């Protein structure tokens, strides 16, 4: 059984990626943002209104909450529970992974 794919919409920057909810946990606090899984553009929330700029010298996209790399071990794609905790469940689409 695989986890469902949760996304907001196709990326308005690159057109091919999916804007997905990325969370990181720092000091027992859940930080959420929206991250394009193709071009790594970051937004603060699923409205995709506010882009998060990356530091010029940063290789990886950074969490707007704590500044850590969104590819670090502390970060992962949000599951449905985490999306609910962030209060974003009604702003995402959930695609069930097809079996076999």
């Amino acid at each position, binding site marked *: 059984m*695989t*986890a*469902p*794919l*949760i*996304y907001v919409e*196709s990326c308005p*920057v*690159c*057109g*091919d*990626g*999916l804007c997905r909810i990325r969370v990181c946990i720092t000091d027992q606090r859940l930080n959420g943002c929206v991250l394009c*899984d*193709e*071009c*790594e*553009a970051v937004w603060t929330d699923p409205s995709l209104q506010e*882009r998060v*700029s*990356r530091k*010029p010298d940063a*290789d*990886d996209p950074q969490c707007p909450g704590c500044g850590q790399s969104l*590819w670090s*071990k502390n970060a*992962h*794609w949000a*599951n449905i529970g985490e999306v609910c905790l962030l209060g974003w469940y009604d702003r995402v*689409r959930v*695609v069930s*992974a*097809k079996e076999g």
Partner: protein
Amino acid sequence: MATKPRSESAVNALRMIPTKWAVILLGILIVYVVLQPRLNQWFGWNLPSVASMVGDEKPAKATNKKGESTKNETSRNDTAKPTKKGNDVEPDLEKESNPETASSKKKPAEKTKTAEEADEEREQPISTLGKSQNNNPSQPTKTATKPKNESDESDPLYGFLTEVGRNRYESPAGLVYGPGSEEGHRLKHIARHLEDQPDRPGSHGVFKGSMKAFLTTIDEGYARAKKGAKGTTKKEDDGLVVYEITFEKAIGFIGGEAGGRKKNPATKKLRLVVRGSNVITAFPF
């Protein structure tokens, strides 16, 4: 009773038909011999050669999908018929990734491998990336000047890239492929676009050809886009630069759910996203 050799019986058969017809048949045969490899190349057919029909030689495979990249033209010619082919790269994700991601990316393509694809598979070496190649700074860097006969099979740089730092590889046009992305390395990330993900929502551009051909195409597009050549556009977006390049021939097809709904149309366009000279992603669109 001993049977006559095949060639002898063929000659006897020829003697039985009028000269005029024999000449016509001979003409047709010559035309077929000349056109057969070209037709295979142009249309990706698999017409058997005369030798294979007469003797025991196996039919020649379509000649346009050779692993050796004379130029990316080779792979681009393949694109008339989009297929969901097996990737020649199976990225070995090293970073912790969510199972949902892994599952969505690793859906096996539902197509049996052809000989050509097997050839292409041998060209791939990405699985070694990110496993700290050449960590020793004193070790000489690998370059594209490697002799051709060593083949690209075991070369993580495809005989095309030059190692310019730890896990950082530069292309002839100056693009840098380094660590990053969910897959751990940009080369692994763009390798996702060698394979369709039919269940992925939206569209998913798929390059039709080998990884080396893909890198060559990206480089060619980048060189053209930097000059502002015709058929290219450049858009800057918060540090990201998005180039769009249109090629003369199809380079791939549109996959994913959206592409599948449209029967995977072929495309001539490539989108390249860079930050400085660092590649973020590239894909046909």
